[in-house]
């Protein structure tokens, strides 16, 4: 059973545009939601994360929003740059056993 569902599977945006990735989950015990960024040939790396006590977290051009009632979260990238081209993974964790459940990823291409 897929614990974390992510969409879209792939996305192309123009440089300077806004990218929006979405994610949903089912397990109410999840309370930690990280987003990982992966460039070709590298392992994933933490981009931004949010706890369920918050509804928004911002880090430069990257903002993640969390909706506990709807069990949904999103990642917004403003002023998207070609260097943002990567695969983005939404993830969720109950924080009780150090397990993180990953979505299937979104492959983002930012065209100049």
């Amino acid at each position: 059973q897929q614990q974390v569902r992510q969409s879209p599977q792939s996305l192309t945006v123009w440089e300077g545009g806004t990218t929006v990735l979405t994610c949903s989950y089912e397990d109410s015990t999840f309370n930690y939601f990280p987003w990982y960024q992966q460039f070709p040939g590298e392992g994933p790396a933490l981009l931004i994360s949010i706890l369920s006590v918050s509804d928004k977290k911002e880090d430069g051009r990257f903002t993640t929003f969390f909706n506990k009632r709807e069990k949904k979260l999103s990642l917004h990238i403003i002023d998207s740059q070609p260097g943002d081209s990567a695969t983005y993974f939404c993830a969720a964790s109950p924080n009780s056993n150090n397990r993180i459940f990953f979505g299937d990823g979104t492959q983002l291409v930012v065209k100049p």
Partner: protein
Amino acid sequence: EAAVTQSPRNKVTVTGGNVTLSCRQTNSHNYMYWYRQDTGHGLRLIHYSYGAGNLQIGDVPDGYKATRTTQEDFFLLLELASPSQTSLYFCASSDAGQSSYEQYFGPGTRLTVL
């Protein structure tokens, strides 16, 4: 910053072959993980460990064994490799009990089973 290294970076074997993937982390993290990454499936957890001698089963453990020999070293063993195990394998580590549950990933091992 945590450092996680994996070896080999690339491996080709034949069906029925015996393969060992190695992972070492140098920041004394408690937890270590083995994932496989396949197109359309994201990252799937194979096995993980919270210390030397400990092993926990992940979501896709069939056909894999793992062993955590020290705090630093975690091995993934494929004793009878099959073509379905052709994949990109990642090791990761994290530090339990901290405010952050960030997992630090290695660079990956690409395994091809012919």
